[in-house]
Every structure is written in C-alpha cells, then in structure tokens.
C-alpha cells in the first residue's frame, strides 16, 4: 500500500518539529528517514502511524492508497509499528506477545484459535525463534527482542510497516546481521516499509530510497546512489559520510580556497559570495611536491593504518584539519610518515555557493 504525506506540520509549543512536509512512498518500497536527532524523523513516523497528532490544516492529509486516514484511530490503520526499545509486553511470553494483535480482535474478525496458533508458529519460524516461544522478553538478548517486536507487528498483517530506529539499541555486530535480515525479509514479504535512522550507513545499505531530513524539513529524496553521489546540498553531503570542508570566496567567477582554485565551466556569477568546498576523504590525493598543480600545503600529524583503509590526518594552512583516506596498496607504493610536509589536491569535489549547489563537480 502506498503512503502519501501532504503538507504536514507539527509544533511542540514554539518548537517547529515538522515544517510543511510532503512525502510519497510507493507501494512495496523500503524507505529510510535519515537525519540527525531533532530533525523530525521520528515525529513524522509517529504521525503516519497515528500515535502523534499534527497541526491540522485544510491542505494537510495522510493518505494510505489514496484514502485519507488522518482522522482514523491508530488501531484501525492496520500499521505495524516497531519501537526503538521494542516495547514488548514484559509479562507475556514471546508467543503471547506475537498473538496479542490477533487475540484482541472482536469476535467477528478474530481468527480461530488454531488459525492464530498456525500464524504465530509461522512468524516464530520467520524470525528463527521457534524454540524460544515460551521465554519472557527479559530472558532474550536485544537482537532477539527486536525480532519478536517485528513478528508481533507482522502478525496483524499490516499494510504498512513502520520502524523507529529499529537497530538503534543494539551493538554493532548484531545490528549488521539484523540489517541484512530485514532487507531479505522485505524482499520476501514486500510490505511498504518506512524506517527511521540516524545512521547513514544503515540507510545506504538497507533502503530502496532515502529521505534526508534536517530541522523539520526534507532536504533530499532519492536512491542511496543519488543522495550519496549527487547530494542536493552541503548538509546532505556532510551527513552522508565524512567530508573535508573548506571555506572560501568567489573571485572573478572562480572559487578560491587559499592556494586551491576551483574554476567551474561557465564561471560563477556571484562574485564576493562565500563558497564552500566539500571533499570526501577518499577523493583527496597526497603529493610530495606541488607539480604545478594548485594543491594545499599540509603537514601529516597522524597515520592510522589498522582498518580497511589507511586514514591520514593532516593540518593545512590556518590550522585547518584535513582527513585523507587511501587504499593500503597505494600507501605501500608511496609511504608517508608523520611530520611529512606534503600537498593535498582533490580528485573530485563539490562546490556549494550560498548553499545552492552549483554543477561544480570537478574530476
């Protein structure tokens, strides 16, 4: 079932948590709401579920398959909601937790006892916990609890699955396993799903599409590739991975960052404006000499070679910290040492003038 959110605002007192947000989630997609804390992503999720009221206006609406559900009670929306801290019923066993949504139905709509049992067993198998059906939540590990919470949400055959920071409370290893499991599960059952996360890696790995949010607004909507490689603005680029940020100024149609000059094709028409250059750590190269190129002089302060890539920290002019990542092969070919005076130049960078993105990608 598709979800559409139209012109939703939400204020807590004078704080505007959501500022006229509109969003479409096509049927069967797995969408991530990604943003820092306080960006309004959880509020948006809770509003879709019906757990939170929004500022009602004439234009605002929440549509499930084109039908406005904004005035419908939570229980009638048939959404599966997975809470960040699981919210399992602590006095019920795993089995009872999963069966809850079916058992509370009215006599007319409630499945028979056998039917409920069959359904719960199926779900227990799906989450690979069939042997722990009689355990209480307190006897489960975090990852197991989260899977029970998911099974409980799926038991009512929801038309929409909403997950609030589903892996937030788990440790890194468990999180990664569960992430892949969720992706596989979604490929199997194809229920329209929205999950909230502040972890960009999680969003990039799991989601079909990513909605990047900041300060109650949507900054960009796109596939993981789109938001990562064509960020709509400096915030998106900064949030989706580490970046080096350089402040400069537009002079005679070119952006100047110390000795580094970016000359975009067609030139810039905003002389005197401040400009920002964002460069991913792996898009920076380190050279021994300047080789006639406009590189930035810098000094290596730290080298960390334990890990998938070699991480090098440098200090440029004005004590500007610079982070570079390079492959181990490359580092072996051109070994560097702490204290080396080198030049740093970008292979790819993104230029943002006054926060509007310019087609300033440079290769």
């Amino acid at each position, binding site marked *: 079932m598709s979800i559409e959110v139209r012109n939703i605002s939400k204020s807590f007192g004078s704080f505007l948590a959501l500022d006229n947000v509109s969003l479409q989630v096509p049927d069967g997609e797995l969408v991530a709401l990604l943003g820092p804390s306080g960006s309004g992503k959880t509020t948006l999720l809770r509003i879709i579920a019906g757990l939170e009221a929004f500022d009602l206006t004439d234009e605002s609406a929440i549509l499930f398959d084109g039908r406005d559900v904004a005035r419908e009670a939570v229980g009638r929306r048939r*959404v599966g909601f997975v809470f960040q801290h699981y919210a399992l019923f602590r006095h019920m066993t795993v089995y009872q937790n999963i069966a809850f949504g079916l058992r509370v139905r009215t006599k007319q709509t409630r499945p028979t006892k056998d039917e409920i049992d069959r359904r719960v067993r199926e779900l227990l198998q799906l989450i690979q916990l069939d042997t722990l059906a009689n355990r209480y939540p307190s*006897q489960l590990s975090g990852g197991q609890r989260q899977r029970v919470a998911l099974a409980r949400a799926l038991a009512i055959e929801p038309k929409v699955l909403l997950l609030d920071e589903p892996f937030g409370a788990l440790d890194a290893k468990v999180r990664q396993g569960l992430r892949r499991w969720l992706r596989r599960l979604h490929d199997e059952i194809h229920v329209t799903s929205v999950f909230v996360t502040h972890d960009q890696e999680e969003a990039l790995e799991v989601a079909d599409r990513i909605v990047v949010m900041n300060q109650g607004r949507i900054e960009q909507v796109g596939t993981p590739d789109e938001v990562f490689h064509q960020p709509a603005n400096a915030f998106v680029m900064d949030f989706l991975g580490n970046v080096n940020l350089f402040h400069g100024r537009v002079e005679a149609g070119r952006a100047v960052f110390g000795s580094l000059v970016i000359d975009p094709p067609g030139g810039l028409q905003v002389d005197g404006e401040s400009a920002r250059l964002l460069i991913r750590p792996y898009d920076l190269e380190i050279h021994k000499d300047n080789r006639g190129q406009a590189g930035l002089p810098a000094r290596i302060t730290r080298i960390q070679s334990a890990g998938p890539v070699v991480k090098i920290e440098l200090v440029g002019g004005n004590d500007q910290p610079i982070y570079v990542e390079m492959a181990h092969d490359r580092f072996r070919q051109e070994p560097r040492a702490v204290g080396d005076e080198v030049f740093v130049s970008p292979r790819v960078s993104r230029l943002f003038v006054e926060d509007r993105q310019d087609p300033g990608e440079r290769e």
Partner: protein
Amino acid sequence: MAGTAKSRLTRRRTAATIAGTGDPAWVRWSICLVSLAFLGLFLAVPLAAVFTEALRKGVGAYLESFQNRDALAAIRLTLLVAGIAVPLNIVFGLAASWAIAKFEFRGKSVLITLIDLPFAVSPVISGLIYVLLFGLQGWLGPWLAAHHIQIIFAVPGIVLATIFVTFPFVARELIPLMQEQGTEEEEAALVLGASGWQTFWRVTLPNVKWGLLYGVILCNARAMGEFGAVSVVSGHLRGQTNTMPLHVEILYNEYNFVAAFAVASLLALLALVTLVLKAIVEWRTQRESTELPASTPTSLQEVT
C-alpha cells in the same frame, strides 16, 4: 540488556567500596548494636508485651475475650470498613496513577499534592472535617437530618474517614511504577488494534500487579488500624460504632486488660501478616525486575 550491564557495574563498585573504604570493625559493630537495641526496645518488647498480657490469665480467658458480643461487633465492623475502603481506594488509586503517569494535563502537580494530603494532615483533623461537614451543626447536617440520613456517629462516617486516611497508599505506590514503565507498551497495544479497555486490562494492569498488591496490603493495614480519624467520627457506641482499635481503648480504660490485649493481639497479628506479605511481594517484584537474560549478549562483555 543495558540494565544488566548497569547492575553488574554497580555490583563491582560495591565490592570495591567494601575493600577500599570499609569502616573499622568497632564502628560497624556499634552501629549494629545501636540499631538492634532500638528495634528491640521499640518493636520486639512491646510486641511480646501484648501477647504476654493477653495470655496472662491463660488461653481460656484469652479466647473468652472473643466470645464477647461487643468484641465480635468491633471485629465485624473493622472488616466491613476495610472491605469497603480498600476496594474503593484500589479504583481511585488506579485511576489517579493512570491519569498522572500516562497523560499530560493541566493541574497535574496539584493532583499529586492533593493525593499526599492525608499524609500531611493529622488524622484527628481529617475526622473533624467530616464532623464539620456532616455533623448536626455542620454544613450539610440540617439537610441530612431532615432526610434521616446519619453519617456522623454511624458506619458511613467511619467508612468516609477511613477512605480519606488511606487513599494515598495505592496511588503513591503505583505512580512512580507507572511513570517508570512509560507509555510505549500501551502505544504498542493500541497500534496492534487493542481498545483502551483491553489495553488497560491486558497491558497496564498486569504490569503493575505487584505494586498494586503492595499498596493494597499497606492500605488494608492502615484501614484496619486507623484510630484518630475514626475516633472523632465514631461516637464510641459499644457494639455499634466501635472498630477494633477503639474497642481496645475502651476495654483498657475499663481496666479489662486481658480482653484489651486480646483484641490488640489480633491487630498485632494483622501487622505481622502484613509484614510477611509485604516481604513476599517485595521479593517477587525484585526477582521479576532483575531477571537476567538467558543468553548473555556479546555487547555485555564489551561494556563491563
């Protein structure tokens, strides 16, 4: 998971405290002795005295005290009053703590303060308020008299005074518990399609059952043992408006020591049973809240 990690940390810290900053032996011993002496003087000795006095003229005389019509009437009245006050206070306590813990509304802090009022006010004043309200010279007295409704110096007055004195017990026990549990489980139930009523019976109530029982035990003990407020509104009519504590006083004032202490021993027994029940409930609650997860997740090793 996080809770377990924390409890392990605290345990380790406690061990360090004993090892590093333990007090010298004589300090520990003298503190122990002082508290034991205190307990003996103020709790054990009086308790022993009650039973000794009650049995001074033998078991026969002791049991005979309960054959007395007035004594039986006092016991019956006490049970009746507790039987009315405790259920009403369960309903009130649940409603108040549910409202306070699960919802945000204006005047919430005023309500919390009001719930504490009976603790702050002397029981005698509480009784006096009802005399001023419902007594013959009171605000509602003439109207009540005209309609032949007697509240003061009758059972309804005793019930009212008891309810007033005991109503913080259940609510006070439940409010912090419910606040700590938050509203997520209720929200989960609602999303799953449960009605508000189902959510209350199947999620909220089972989650607080031990806290509720604890509150009920304390509430009951107080309801049966209340003296001051009940004394003011009762009128001390033998066989009619005397509860057990009041009956004890009357017998004592009549120098009927064996009978007085016999009835008193019943109240003391009630206190002992209450303490035992309280300990059991506390033990159950603690066991439930500290249950360790069966399989220790890997993160724990990293945390601790």
